Protein backbone atom coordinates (compact mmCIF):
# COMPACT_ATOMS: atom_id res chain seq x y z
CA UNK A 1 0.00 0.00 0.00
CA UNK A 2 1.36 3.47 -0.83
CA UNK A 3 2.10 6.01 1.89
CA UNK A 4 -0.67 8.22 0.44
CA UNK A 5 -3.25 5.42 0.67
CA UNK A 6 -2.21 4.69 4.26
CA UNK A 7 -2.38 8.37 5.16
CA UNK A 8 -5.92 8.61 3.73
CA UNK A 9 -7.06 5.68 5.87
CA UNK A 10 -5.28 7.13 8.91
CA UNK A 11 -7.08 10.43 8.42
CA UNK A 12 -10.43 8.64 8.72
CA UNK A 13 -9.20 6.81 11.84
CA UNK A 14 -8.05 9.91 13.75
CA UNK A 15 -11.07 12.06 12.87
CA UNK A 16 -13.27 11.16 15.88
CA UNK A 17 -10.48 12.05 18.32
CA UNK A 18 -9.42 15.38 16.80
CA UNK A 19 -9.94 18.60 18.78
CA UNK A 20 -8.67 21.06 16.19
CA UNK A 21 -10.83 20.99 13.07
CA UNK A 22 -8.83 23.49 11.01
CA UNK A 23 -5.55 21.61 11.47
CA UNK A 24 -7.39 18.39 10.66
CA UNK A 25 -8.75 19.87 7.40
CA UNK A 26 -5.19 20.89 6.49
CA UNK A 27 -3.64 17.61 7.65
CA UNK A 28 -0.23 16.82 6.14
CA UNK A 29 2.34 14.09 6.77
CA UNK A 30 4.02 16.49 9.22
CA UNK A 31 0.91 16.92 11.41
CA UNK A 32 1.53 16.08 15.05
CA UNK A 33 -1.27 14.25 16.87
CA UNK A 34 -1.00 16.06 20.19
CA UNK A 35 0.17 19.58 19.28
CA UNK A 36 -1.54 20.07 15.90
CA UNK A 37 -4.62 17.85 16.01
CA UNK A 38 -4.92 18.18 19.80
CA UNK A 39 -5.77 14.55 20.28
CA UNK A 40 -6.02 13.73 23.97
CA UNK A 41 -3.20 11.35 24.98
CA UNK A 42 -5.69 8.76 26.30
CA UNK A 43 -7.24 8.71 22.81
CA UNK A 44 -3.84 8.03 21.23
CA UNK A 45 -4.32 4.52 22.60
CA UNK A 46 -7.57 4.33 20.60
CA UNK A 47 -5.77 5.52 17.47
CA UNK A 48 -3.21 2.71 17.91
CA UNK A 49 -5.95 0.10 18.46
CA UNK A 50 -8.00 1.38 15.50
CA UNK A 51 -4.88 1.22 13.30
CA UNK A 52 -4.30 -2.39 14.42
CA UNK A 53 -7.88 -3.32 13.53
CA UNK A 54 -8.00 -1.46 10.22
CA UNK A 55 -4.70 -2.85 8.87
CA UNK A 56 -4.87 -6.18 10.71
CA UNK A 57 -1.46 -5.71 12.33
CA UNK A 58 -0.13 -5.72 15.93
CA UNK A 59 1.95 -2.81 17.17
CA UNK A 60 4.47 -3.35 19.98
CA UNK A 61 5.46 -0.63 22.43
CA UNK A 62 8.75 0.21 20.65
CA UNK A 63 6.74 1.12 17.56
CA UNK A 64 3.86 2.69 19.46
CA UNK A 65 6.21 5.19 21.08
CA UNK A 66 6.97 6.71 17.66
CA UNK A 67 3.32 7.15 16.73
CA UNK A 68 2.98 10.84 17.58
CA UNK A 69 2.74 12.21 14.04
CA UNK A 70 1.07 11.24 10.76
CA UNK A 71 4.38 10.52 9.04
CA UNK A 72 5.82 8.38 11.85
CA UNK A 73 2.56 6.41 12.07
CA UNK A 74 2.43 5.82 8.29
CA UNK A 75 6.02 4.53 8.49
CA UNK A 76 5.17 2.11 11.32
CA UNK A 77 2.13 0.81 9.39
CA UNK A 78 4.11 0.41 6.19
CA UNK A 79 6.86 -1.51 7.99
CA UNK A 80 4.29 -3.80 9.64
CA UNK A 81 2.45 -4.46 6.38
CA UNK A 82 5.71 -5.41 4.65
CA UNK A 83 6.62 -7.94 7.35
CA UNK A 84 3.17 -9.59 7.24
Amino acid at each position, binding site marked *: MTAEAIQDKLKVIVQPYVNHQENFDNLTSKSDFINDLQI*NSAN*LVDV*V*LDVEDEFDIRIENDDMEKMISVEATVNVIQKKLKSK
Partner: protein
Amino acid sequence: MIGNDIVDLKKAKTDSNIFRPRYMEKVLSQNEQNLVLSSPNPEQRFWRLWTMKESAYKAFQRELNFKSIFNPFAFYCELIDLENGLVHFEGNSVKTTTFNSENYIYSSVSYSTFTRSLIANSMEELLQNLRMEFGESSQPELLKLKNGLPFIKIVSKIIPVSTTHHGLYFAIQF
Protein backbone atom coordinates in the same frame (compact mmCIF):
# COMPACT_ATOMS: atom_id res chain seq x y z
CA MET B 1 11.62 18.15 39.24
CA ILE B 2 8.14 19.16 38.11
CA GLY B 3 5.50 17.30 36.14
CA ASN B 4 1.75 17.08 36.60
CA ASP B 5 -1.40 15.69 34.99
CA ILE B 6 -5.10 16.07 35.60
CA VAL B 7 -8.02 13.94 34.40
CA ASP B 8 -11.60 15.17 34.43
CA LEU B 9 -13.37 11.95 35.37
CA LYS B 10 -16.67 12.85 33.69
CA LYS B 11 -14.92 13.73 30.43
CA ALA B 12 -12.73 10.64 30.64
CA LYS B 13 -15.86 8.50 30.92
CA THR B 14 -17.35 9.90 27.71
CA ASP B 15 -14.07 10.16 25.73
CA SER B 16 -12.36 6.88 26.56
CA ASN B 17 -13.37 3.31 27.09
CA ILE B 18 -10.57 1.85 29.16
CA PHE B 19 -12.32 -1.53 29.10
CA ARG B 20 -12.04 -1.72 25.32
CA PRO B 21 -10.22 -4.96 24.39
CA ARG B 22 -6.39 -4.53 24.44
CA TYR B 23 -6.66 -0.93 25.72
CA MET B 24 -5.14 -1.58 29.14
CA GLU B 25 -2.43 -3.92 27.91
CA LYS B 26 -1.12 -1.15 25.65
CA VAL B 27 -0.42 1.13 28.60
CA LEU B 28 -0.20 -1.02 31.73
CA SER B 29 2.05 -3.88 32.83
CA GLN B 30 0.42 -7.09 34.07
CA ASN B 31 0.94 -5.95 37.69
CA GLU B 32 -0.61 -2.57 36.99
CA GLN B 33 -3.58 -4.21 35.25
CA ASN B 34 -4.07 -6.33 38.38
CA LEU B 35 -4.02 -3.17 40.51
CA VAL B 36 -6.82 -1.76 38.36
CA LEU B 37 -8.93 -4.89 38.15
CA SER B 38 -8.69 -5.66 41.88
CA SER B 39 -9.70 -2.13 42.84
CA PRO B 40 -13.25 -1.39 44.08
CA ASN B 41 -13.17 1.53 41.63
CA PRO B 42 -11.22 0.34 38.58
CA GLU B 43 -11.75 3.55 36.60
CA GLN B 44 -10.36 5.78 39.35
CA ARG B 45 -7.45 3.41 39.82
CA PHE B 46 -6.72 3.40 36.09
CA TRP B 47 -6.69 7.19 35.88
CA ARG B 48 -4.53 7.41 38.98
CA LEU B 49 -1.89 5.23 37.29
CA TRP B 50 -2.33 7.15 34.04
CA THR B 51 -1.79 10.58 35.68
CA MET B 52 1.22 9.21 37.61
CA LYS B 53 2.77 8.04 34.33
CA GLU B 54 2.04 11.33 32.56
CA SER B 55 3.49 13.46 35.37
CA ALA B 56 6.61 11.30 35.51
CA TYR B 57 6.92 11.52 31.71
CA LYS B 58 6.82 15.33 31.86
CA ALA B 59 9.35 15.44 34.71
CA PHE B 60 11.77 13.03 33.02
CA GLN B 61 11.41 14.73 29.65
CA ARG B 62 12.41 18.03 31.25
CA GLU B 63 15.26 16.42 33.20
CA LEU B 64 16.65 14.08 30.54
CA ASN B 65 15.72 16.31 27.61
CA PHE B 66 14.39 13.61 25.25
CA LYS B 67 12.04 14.21 22.33
CA SER B 68 8.35 13.39 22.64
CA ILE B 69 7.42 9.71 22.71
CA PHE B 70 4.15 7.88 23.33
CA ASN B 71 4.89 4.91 25.53
CA PRO B 72 3.01 4.90 28.85
CA PHE B 73 4.03 1.24 29.18
CA ALA B 74 7.67 2.32 29.72
CA PHE B 75 6.66 4.13 32.94
CA TYR B 76 6.08 1.59 35.68
CA CYS B 77 3.99 2.55 38.74
CA GLU B 78 4.15 1.35 42.31
CA LEU B 79 1.50 2.46 44.79
CA ILE B 80 2.70 3.24 48.33
CA ASP B 81 -0.58 4.39 49.87
CA LEU B 82 -3.73 6.22 48.77
CA GLU B 83 -1.77 9.34 47.78
CA ASN B 84 1.85 8.43 47.30
CA GLY B 85 3.45 6.38 44.61
CA LEU B 86 6.63 5.76 42.67
CA VAL B 87 7.16 5.78 38.92
CA HIS B 88 10.17 4.02 37.39
CA PHE B 89 11.54 4.84 33.95
CA GLU B 90 14.73 3.39 32.47
CA GLY B 91 16.49 3.01 35.80
CA ASN B 92 15.26 6.32 37.23
CA SER B 93 12.49 6.77 39.80
CA VAL B 94 10.32 9.65 40.98
CA LYS B 95 7.83 10.00 43.79
CA THR B 96 4.34 11.16 42.93
CA THR B 97 1.42 12.46 44.95
CA THR B 98 -2.15 11.95 43.77
CA PHE B 99 -5.19 13.90 44.82
CA ASN B 100 -8.51 12.17 44.23
CA SER B 101 -11.75 14.08 44.19
CA GLU B 102 -15.18 13.01 43.04
CA ASN B 103 -14.71 14.97 39.80
CA TYR B 104 -11.02 14.77 38.97
CA ILE B 105 -7.75 13.01 39.66
CA TYR B 106 -4.59 15.06 39.92
CA SER B 107 -1.05 13.70 40.16
CA SER B 108 2.21 15.56 40.42
CA VAL B 109 5.80 14.61 40.90
CA SER B 110 6.80 15.21 44.51
CA TYR B 111 10.55 15.11 44.10
CA SER B 112 11.01 18.33 46.01
CA THR B 113 8.79 19.48 48.87
CA PHE B 114 9.14 23.05 47.65
CA THR B 115 6.79 22.65 44.70
CA ARG B 116 3.17 23.76 44.87
CA SER B 117 0.14 23.03 42.72
CA LEU B 118 -2.91 25.15 41.96
CA ILE B 119 -6.12 23.88 40.34
CA ALA B 120 -8.82 26.07 38.75
CA ASN B 121 -11.64 26.02 36.20
CA SER B 122 -9.97 28.25 33.62
CA MET B 123 -6.50 29.40 32.64
CA GLU B 124 -7.42 32.97 33.63
CA GLU B 125 -8.50 31.90 37.09
CA LEU B 126 -5.31 29.87 37.44
CA LEU B 127 -3.10 32.85 36.53
CA GLN B 128 -5.13 35.06 38.85
CA ASN B 129 -4.54 32.61 41.73
CA LEU B 130 -0.87 32.46 40.84
CA ARG B 131 -0.64 36.26 40.97
CA MET B 132 -2.09 36.23 44.48
CA GLU B 133 0.20 33.37 45.46
CA PHE B 134 3.22 35.53 44.58
CA GLY B 135 1.66 38.70 46.01
CA GLU B 136 2.26 40.58 42.78
CA SER B 137 0.09 43.23 41.20
CA SER B 138 0.71 42.36 37.55
CA GLN B 139 -0.76 39.32 35.87
CA PRO B 140 1.70 36.45 35.25
CA GLU B 141 2.20 35.37 31.65
CA LEU B 142 2.38 31.75 30.55
CA LEU B 143 5.09 31.25 27.92
CA LYS B 144 6.70 28.34 26.16
CA LEU B 145 10.41 27.89 25.50
CA LYS B 146 11.64 26.74 22.10
CA ASN B 147 11.73 23.13 23.30
CA GLY B 148 8.03 23.44 24.23
CA LEU B 149 8.54 23.54 27.99
CA PRO B 150 6.26 26.02 29.75
CA PHE B 151 7.29 28.73 32.20
CA ILE B 152 5.67 31.66 33.93
CA LYS B 153 6.89 35.22 33.65
CA ILE B 154 5.78 37.23 36.66
CA VAL B 155 7.15 40.77 36.86
CA SER B 156 10.86 40.08 36.26
CA LYS B 157 10.86 36.51 37.55
CA ILE B 158 10.93 33.51 35.20
CA ILE B 159 9.65 30.34 36.84
CA PRO B 160 9.57 26.88 35.21
CA VAL B 161 6.12 25.32 35.52
CA SER B 162 4.24 22.21 34.47
CA THR B 163 0.70 22.70 33.22
CA THR B 164 -2.17 20.35 32.51
CA HIS B 165 -5.72 20.77 31.28
CA HIS B 166 -8.52 18.26 30.81
CA GLY B 167 -12.23 19.00 30.52
CA LEU B 168 -13.25 21.48 33.21
CA TYR B 169 -9.94 21.52 35.04
CA PHE B 170 -6.68 23.42 34.69
CA ALA B 171 -3.68 22.89 36.95
CA ILE B 172 -0.19 24.26 37.32
CA GLN B 173 2.79 23.05 39.34
CA PHE B 174 5.70 25.34 40.15
